[in-house]
C-alpha cells in the first residue's frame, strides 16, 4: 500500500475539506450532548455560581451608602485634612439636604453601615435628622450649615466622626475582610488591630484550623483499621461492618449530635459509668461537652465515614497477594505494610483527609450544639452575623476567606499528591 504524505489540506472523497466535513458530521452529536447537560449547567449556574459570585461581590460592596450620600461624599473628598480641622461648609450643606430629603429606609440601612465604621453614628444621625426636619418645616435657611450641625450636637465638631467617612467614600471597601481578621482602619485609613475586647475572629480561625486538623488525624487513626477490615473480611462480615459504618451516616445529624450530648454531659452515660466503676468520684465528673473536647469527639464520629469510604475503595483493589509477595521476598509483616501496603493507600488517605478537613473547616451545627463557648468554629460566627446582626458584608468576607482557604488546600493537594490520584469510589 502506498502511503501518501501531503502538506496540502486533506479532502474527503467528495472533495470537501476533511476537517469541515468532520465538524459537520459531529455537529449533531455535539448539540445533543450539550442539550443533555444544559439543565445541569443551568442548575449549577443558578444554585452555585451565582450565589458564590454574589457572596464575593457582597464582601467588598459598599455602594449602598454611596447612593444615599453621593454629594456629601463628593465634597468630603475635597477636604484637606492637613489645613482644616473640620470639613468645609459644602460637606455640611450637602449632608443637610441629603438627610432632609433622603429615603428613610435607605438612610436607616446606611446608618447600620456607618455604625460598623464608628459606633455612635446611628444615634447622632437620627437625632440630627429630627432637628433638620424641624428646620426644613419652618422654612428657614441656615446661614452656616456647619454651625447649625454643631448646635444640634457637639459631636459634629469632633473630627474622628468625620474621619470614619474615609472607609465609606468608595463603592468598594476591604473593611469587611480586615474586620474578619480582627483589624480595622484608623483615622488616617491605616490598618490597625481592633480593640482588645473586639478581637475574636483570629482566635476562632485558629481554633477552626486546630479542630479540623485534629478531627482529620483522629478520623485517619480510627478509620484506617476499619477500612482495612472492610476490604479484607469475607463478604458476609464486611457487609455487616459496612452497615455499621453507614447506619450512623444515614441518621440525622441532629440526632447524632444530641446523642453525643446525652453520652458526654456531666450527668451523662459515660460519666455515670466511670462513677459507677469508681474511676472518678461523684463530684469529679469530667466536663466532656460544651467545650472543645465535645466538638472534637462529636465531629470525629460524624465525619468518620468520609474517611472510611475513600480508604475502603482504595484498599479494596489492592491485591492481597501484594502483602504475601512482600513477605515472600523477605519483609517482616510490619515492613511489608509500611513499604508495600501503606504507599498504595495514599490516594485514599489524601482523598479522605481532604474531604474530612474541608468538611470540618466549614462545620456549623455540631460545634454550635456541643461546642459551648470555647468550642465554636468560624461557621458559628457566619451564622451569627447572617441571622442576628445582619452584617452580611462581614458574613460574605468570612465566607470568602473560608472559600479561599479551601482553594489553597486544594491547590496544595494538587501540587503534592495530584488531584487525579484522588479516589472516592
Amino acid at each position, binding site marked *: 500500500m502506498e502511503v501518501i504524505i501531503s502538506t496540502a489540506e486533506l479532502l474527503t472523497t467528495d472533495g470537501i475539506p476533511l476537517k469541515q466535513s468532520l465538524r459537520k458530521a459531529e455537529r449533531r452529536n455535539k448539540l445533543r450532548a450539550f442539550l443533555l447537560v444544559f439543565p445541569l449547567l443551568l442548575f449549577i449556574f443558578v444554585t452555585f455560581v451565582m450565589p458564590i459570585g454574589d457572596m464575593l461581590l457582597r464582601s467588598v460592596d459598599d455602594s449602598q451608602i454611596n447612593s444615599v450620600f453621593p454629594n456629601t461624599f463628593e465634597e468630603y473628598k475635597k477636604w484637606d485634612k492637613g489645613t482644616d480641622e473640620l470639613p468645609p461648609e459644602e460637606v455640611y450643606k450637602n449632608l443637610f439636604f441629603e438627610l432632609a430629603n433622603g429615603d428613610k429606609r435607605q438612610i436607616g440601612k446606611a446608618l447600620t453601615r456607618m455604625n460598623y465604621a464608628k459606633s455612635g453614628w446611628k444615634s447622632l444621625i437620627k437625632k440630627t435628622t429630627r432637628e433638620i426636619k424641624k428646620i426644613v418645616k419652618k422654612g428657614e435657611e441656615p446661614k452656616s450649615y456647619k454651625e447649625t450641625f454643631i448646635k444640634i450636637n457637639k459631636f459634629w465638631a469632633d473630627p474622628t466622626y468625620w474621619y470614619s467617612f474615609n472607609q465609606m467614600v468608595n463603592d468598594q471597601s476591604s473593611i469587611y475582610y480586615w474586620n474578619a481578621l480582627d483589624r480595622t482602619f484608623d483615622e488616617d485609613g491605616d490598618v490597625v488591630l481592633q480593640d482588645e475586647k473586639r478581637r475574636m475572629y483570629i482566635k476562632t480561625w485558629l481554633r477552626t484550623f486546630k479542630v479540623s486538623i485534629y478531627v482529620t488525624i483522629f478520623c485517619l487513626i480510627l478509620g484506617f483499621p476499619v477500612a482495612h477490615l472492610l476490604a479484607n473480611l469475607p463478604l458476609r462480615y464486611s457487609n455487616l461492618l459496612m452497615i455499621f459504618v453507614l447506619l450512623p451516616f444515614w441518621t440525622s445529624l441532629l440526632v447524632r449530635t444530641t446523642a453525643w450530648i446525652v453520652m458526654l454531659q456531666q450527668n451523662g452515660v459515660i460519666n455515670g459509668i466511670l462513677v459507677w466503676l469508681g474511676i472518678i468520684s461523684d463530684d469529679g465528673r469530667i466536663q466532656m461537652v460544651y467545650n472543645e473536647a465535645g466538638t472534637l469527639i462529636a465531629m470525629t464520629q460524624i465525619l468518620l465515614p468520609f474517611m472510611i469510604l475513600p480508604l475502603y475503595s482504595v484498599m479494596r483493589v489492592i491485591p492481597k497477594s501484594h502483602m*504475601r509477595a512482600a513477605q515472600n521476598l523477605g519483609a517482616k509483616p510490619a515492613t511489608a505494610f509500611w513499604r508495600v501496603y501503606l504507599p498504595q493507600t495514599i490516594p485514599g488517605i489524601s482523598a479522605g483527609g481532604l474531604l474530612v478537613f474541608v468538611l470540618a473547616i466549614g462545620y456549623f451545627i455540631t460545634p454550635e450544639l456541643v461546642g459551648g463557648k470555647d468550642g465554636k468554629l468560624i461557621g458559628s460566627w457566619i451564622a451569627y452575623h447572617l441571622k442576628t446582626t445582619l452584617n452580611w458584608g462581614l458574613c460574605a468576607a468570612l465566607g470568602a476567606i473560608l472559600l479561599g482557604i479551601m482553594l489553597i488546600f486544594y491547590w496544595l493537594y494538587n501540587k503534592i499528591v495530584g488531584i487525579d490520584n484522588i479516589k472516592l469510589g
Partner: protein
Amino acid sequence: MNDTSQSFVKFEKIDKSYDGEVLVVKNLNLDIAKGEFVTMLGPSGSGKTTTLMMLAGFETPTNGEIFLDTKPISKIPPYEREIGMVFQNYALFPHMTVAENLSFPLEVRKISKPDIKEKVQKALDMVELGNFGTRFPAQLSGGQQQRVALARALVFEPRLVLMDEPLGALDKNLREQMQYEIKHIHDRIGITVVYVTHDQSEALTMSNRIAVFNDGVVQQLSTPDILYEKPENSFVAKFIGENNTLNGVVREVNGSSCTVELDGGFGMVKALKINVNEVGEKTQLSIRPERVSIDNSISDSNNFLGKIEELIYLGDHIRARLDVCGNNEFIVKVPNEGSFNHKEGDELKLSWNSEDVRALDL
C-alpha cells in the same frame, strides 16, 4: 529419589482442611530433588495451589510436615523461608519502579547499595529487560511484567522458586515463548522449581517431573513421557493428552495382560493389565488416538469397525470422529498423506496393538 537424604523438598503425610469438614489435600507425600523442575498439574480445586501455599508458608498444614533441605519448615514464617515466588498476577508493587521492585528483597536483607545495584542489573539482564529499570510496572506489557516478576523471585538467590500459574494471563504465543524462557533460565542457573498449572501442554513442555493432582490426591508422579504413554489411572489418561475410552468387564487375566469383553456385546479386546486385578471387574480401556491404525491390520486380536461421524481437516492431519463399539467420541488422527478418500458415513477398519491399550479403573 524417594530417599529422604536426597530429597530437597519433602512433603510428609500432609493433610489440609480449611473448614474441618473437607480435606483439600489428602495424605500428600512428595519428594523433590535439588535442581528439579516439578510441576503440579490438575484442574482447579484439586489442591495444587494450596500445596504451593503451604510450601511458601501462607497456609499451615493441618497434619504432617514439610521439610526443606531436611529441616522442618512449618514453624518458619514466610519471610524467613528464603523461597522465591512468582504469583499468578505477578504481584508487582505498582508504586515502585521495576528496579525498586527488584531491590526490595535485597534492601530488606540489608545488602549494601552497590551490591544491590549490581544484582538488580544482573537479574534484569537475565530476563532481557536491562533498560527497563526506571519504568513502572503499569508501563510494561504483560510479558514484560511476567519477566520482572520472575527476576524479582530470583534476584535474592532463593533456595527454591515457586510459580503459581505464572503464564495464565498471557496470550497463547507469548505463553509458549515464556515457557521456553523459563525452562532455559532453569537449565542455566539450576535452581529447584515447583510450578503450578492447569495447562497440560505447559507442564509437558517444562517439567522434569509432573505431579497430577485431582481431588486433593496426587494421582501420578512421573516424567512427562511416562505420564503420557503409561498413565496409571483413567483420570491421568483423560487429563493428559487426548484419549479414547471403551468400557468393559475383565474376562481373563494372563500375567501383565488381560482380555476385556466390551459392554454392549461388541467383542473382546486384549489389553495391558494396569489398574485392574481380577476377573469380573469393570474397567475402562484407554487408547491414544495416534496408536489406532486404519485399513491396516496390525493386530490379530484387536480389529474393529468404526463409522465416520465427522471429519475435520487440520492441514497436517485429518481428525476423524468415529462411532466405535458404541462410543461415538472415538477420535482417530489420520496423517494427511493424500490417500485418505473416505467421507462421513463410511465404515473404517480399525486395529491396534494390545500393548497400546491400557485397562484402567472405571
